């Protein structure tokens, strides 16, 4: 009956399988076995080169250098003593150490064990020439990430390393495996998907002496994409030199396009540490260093902006009509609130808005703040993008913090008038990142057009265009004209807070800031502004963490800009 038929067919199927197995394993076994043991099959991985990174002028920022590893395949070794004696001689390493490393790292009979990594080319050639005498020895080529500019580009570029388990989980569907090399921090991490190459390999047949007899198959590795950044290495270097190791940030951005021409966070680190096996110990030192060299202060440092925030206040005041060009406040050197005196840096007497900005008069802005009220200030701060990411193409950007009455209520606390006063001069709970400040400057310069800060210029051949959500602020152009005047005054006026920057060949507008931190530490020094003369119109920010008064930031800016002028970059 039918079930019987099913039974018969099933038996038949299994007999076919069994027969084929017998055929392949018993009759052809020797042939296959031969293929896999006597004339052996080896797999040599071919690394897919990671994409290189260039600056806007084609200078190499990151590339791959060829490196050679000395590897041994345990199964192929005929005379271990002779092999390691030879290696010890040529490599100048103690033989016992080599053998110990070999024993420790060996895994399975056919997996190559790297006993020495990153040898120079000449040594590699010597070994390669003598390979035939020592079966089991293979010189493996791979690529190491090389950052020719060392510390200068560290925070923009990032570094590479072996993938960690958290990332493998997240990324395994995208072609990453346990052995992948991925980027950490900076462009290396942000654009890792474009940069990474695809591994290939050759399968070769070797004889018992380990010499290649036949090429069985090849899977071509794929190169990653090359990237071109908006960075100008000369500007980057000048910024790095200007900061000279002090804790701080310099960011330079093209006003109109939003292209970042330079971004330096100091202190920095040498990304080559992570690619060079021999420098492994330095990694630990970096992490434990209390100066936090791995921290990209430009996007992750959250600081009170101090007087730089007065520019936002000016726009807020004028735009809402709470103050006008005619408004004048008297500054006796302080502002009395109840029993407390909120200080100003000098006695300014009567100030209008332009003077208030140019001389950075606290009292002027205390008054403005009182008129505006914290809600308005909060609104305008948000309008200029504070408290939000700039969406620059770097990972782990922080957003800072813009205080508000609502936030206070949420924390079961109240908003006091003193808070408004602090808010008005960029102190108190408000926190910003240097990149946000640069964006602020550019927005002011362009009378409300918000640029999108970005670092990537092209991927491979394709130019990269990043669109941002917010395009223009709904503020009258006239308001900005007034603010411009104030910002120019800071440089051009004899009492301007940044008069050091009144240099030939430059037309600088800006705002200084000296932000109080904690009583036991120094203040932060800010100078942020923009330049309209020369070949490129740029916005920039110089920030010195606990650097003292803004004078120091201005001085660094001066050094920096002078260098650029001398080298004819700007």
């Amino acid at each position, binding site marked *: *009956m*039918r*079930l019987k*038929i*099913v*039974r018969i067919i*099933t038996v038949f*199927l*299994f007999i*076919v*399988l*069994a027969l*084929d*197995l*017998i055929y*392949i*394993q*018993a009759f*052809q*076994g*020797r*042939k*296959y*076995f031969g*293929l*896999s*043991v006597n004339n*052996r*099959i*080896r*797999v040599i991985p071919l690394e897919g080169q990671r994409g290189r990174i260039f600056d806007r002028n084609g200078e190499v920022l990151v590339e791959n250098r060829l490196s050679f590893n000395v590897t041994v395949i345990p199964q192929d070794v005929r005379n271990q003593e002779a092999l390691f004696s030879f290696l010890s001689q040529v490599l100048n390493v103690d033989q016992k150490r080599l053998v110990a490393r070999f024993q420790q790292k060996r*895994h*399975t*009979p*056919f*997996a190559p064990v790297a006993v020495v990594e990153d040898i120079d080319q000449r040594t590699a050639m010597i070994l390669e020439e003598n390979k035939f005498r020592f079966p089991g020895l293979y010189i493996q080529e791979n690529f190491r990430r090389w950052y020719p500019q060392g510390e200068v580009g560290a925070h923009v570029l990032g570094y590479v390393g072996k993938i960690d388990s958290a990332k493998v989980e997240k990324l395994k*569907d995208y072609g990453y*495996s*346990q*052995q992948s090399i991925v980027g950490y921090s900076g462009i290396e991490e942000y654009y890792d998907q474009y940069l990474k190459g695809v591994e290939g*390999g050759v*399968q070769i047949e070797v004889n018992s002496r380990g010499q290649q007899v036949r090429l*069985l*198959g*090849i*899977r071509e590795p794929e190169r990653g994409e090359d990237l071109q950044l908006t960075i100008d290495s000369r500007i980057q270097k000048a910024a790095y030199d200007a900061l000279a190791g002090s804790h701080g940030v310099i960011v330079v951005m093209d006003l109109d396009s939003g292209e970042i021409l330079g971004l330096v966070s100091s202190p920095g680190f040498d990304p080559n540490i992570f690619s060079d096996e021999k420098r492994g110990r330095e990694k630990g030192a970096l992490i434990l260093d209390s100066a936090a060299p791995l921290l990209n202060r430009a996007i992750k440092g959250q600081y009170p902006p101090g007087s730089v925030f007065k520019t936002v206040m000016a726009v807020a005041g004028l735009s809402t009509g709470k103050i006008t060009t005619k408004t004048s406040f008297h500054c006796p050197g302080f502002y009395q609130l109840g029993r407390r005196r909120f200080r100003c840096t000098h006695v300014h007497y009567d100030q209008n808005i332009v003077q208030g900005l140019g001389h950075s008069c606290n009292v002027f802005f205390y008054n403005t703040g009182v008129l505006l009220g914290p809600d308005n200030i909060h609104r305008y701060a948000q309008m200029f993008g504070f408290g939000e990411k700039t969406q620059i193409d770097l990972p782990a950007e922080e957003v800072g913090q813009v205080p508000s009455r609502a936030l206070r209520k949420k924390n079961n606390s109240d908003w006091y008038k003193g808070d408004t006063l602090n808010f008005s001069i960029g102190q108190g709970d408000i926190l910003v990142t240097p990149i946000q400040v640069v964006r602020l400057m550019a927005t002011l310069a362009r009378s409300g057009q918000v640029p999108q800060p970005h670092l990537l210029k092209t991927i491979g051949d394709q130019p990269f265009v990043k669109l941002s959500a917010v395009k223009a602020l709904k503020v009258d152009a006239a308001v900005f004209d007034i603010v411009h005047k104030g910002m120019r005054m800071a440089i051009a006026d004899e009492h301007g807070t940044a008069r050091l920057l009144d240099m030939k060949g430059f037309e600088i507008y800006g705002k200084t800031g000296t932000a109080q931190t904690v009583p036991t530490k120094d203040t932060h020094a800010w100078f942020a502004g923009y330049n309209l003369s020369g070949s490129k119109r740029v916005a920039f920010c110089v920030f010195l963490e606990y650097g003292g008064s803004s004078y120091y930031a201005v001085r660094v800016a001066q050094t920096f800009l002078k260098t650029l002028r001398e080298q004819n970059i700007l």
Partner: protein
Amino acid sequence: MIWVFTLLIMGAGLIALYSASYHNVRVSNEVFYDQQMFAVVGILIIYLLSRVDYRFFFDAAYIFYGLNVILLVLVLVAGRHALGATRWFTFAGISFQPSEPAKLALILVLARYFAGRRPSVSLNDKDFHGGLWQDLMVPLLITGVPMLLIFKQPDLGTSLLFFGICFIMLFTSGLEYKYLLGLSACCLTALPFAWHILKDYQKDRLLVFLNPNIDPMGAGYTIIQSKIAIGSGRFFGKGWLGGTQNQLNFLPERHTDFIFSVIGEEWGLLGTLAVVSFYFVLIYCGLKIAEQVKDKFGMQLAIGIVGILTLQATINIGMVLGLCPVVGLTLPLMSYGRSSFMIFVIMIGLLLSLSKRRTIF
């Protein structure tokens, strides 16, 4: 008997899986421990199910089928995309493939349907009036819906499996020979058209199956590798963890589709014939149960389970030996795969449940 051989299969699978994941760049030992845990849970489930009356599944059949179709539609829309296909859902950290329970759903529904149409097992009922629509078209439709959805994922192997199961169950349901022949004829004539629906890589697979040397570095590579691996095992194999082809990470998917190659290389002819016989005995027992069950639903269900087991096992082993084109069917209870493992566990449990009750209800 079923217990013994199921455990033997699971055991062999774990041993092979350990080796396959041992020095693997793509997966870690995690898969071994994962599968091990599933085996333990699975044994429990088999035991529990064997005590359950399979009639419960009769009641749930249509609902289960309906739910499954919804899941299959959903996975196409909202599923996770990996390796060029959208087959999985990820749900609070767990992922599962709806095409696996779909197999169970199909046989349950078909079994119930056939039982409803023609309750007599012996097919000697003189009062039965067959009809083209009810006896052939409706089952084809029931099969067709999930089959198409799975085909769209795309998962060629599983969707063809569905057709195979349907055919077997139609055969044992007593469909008249003329219809069966007609169906077969239709399929054969439809083949040239089907060729055009296939995607490029699926076509490649079929061409390569006919002659692996066409593409020794690409699609044919896997087959060549697999045969070398198995053949080089000869009689007694290279020993556990000693498989060279296995350890040289160029035999892809050896923890899933090609797990049998690992057995071939490391345990030789001894191992491969042993595993083949495990499956054979398991399936034979299943067939015996099918013959002895007195109700149509039970019989069809048993046939369905046996059918899936047989088809998947033989096609997978055939694939690995180069006898069949690579279609991506896993080896039941041995290949790594949570959803698949679970479903087979459930099916074994059902089989045991069937073996206990052989009287009419």
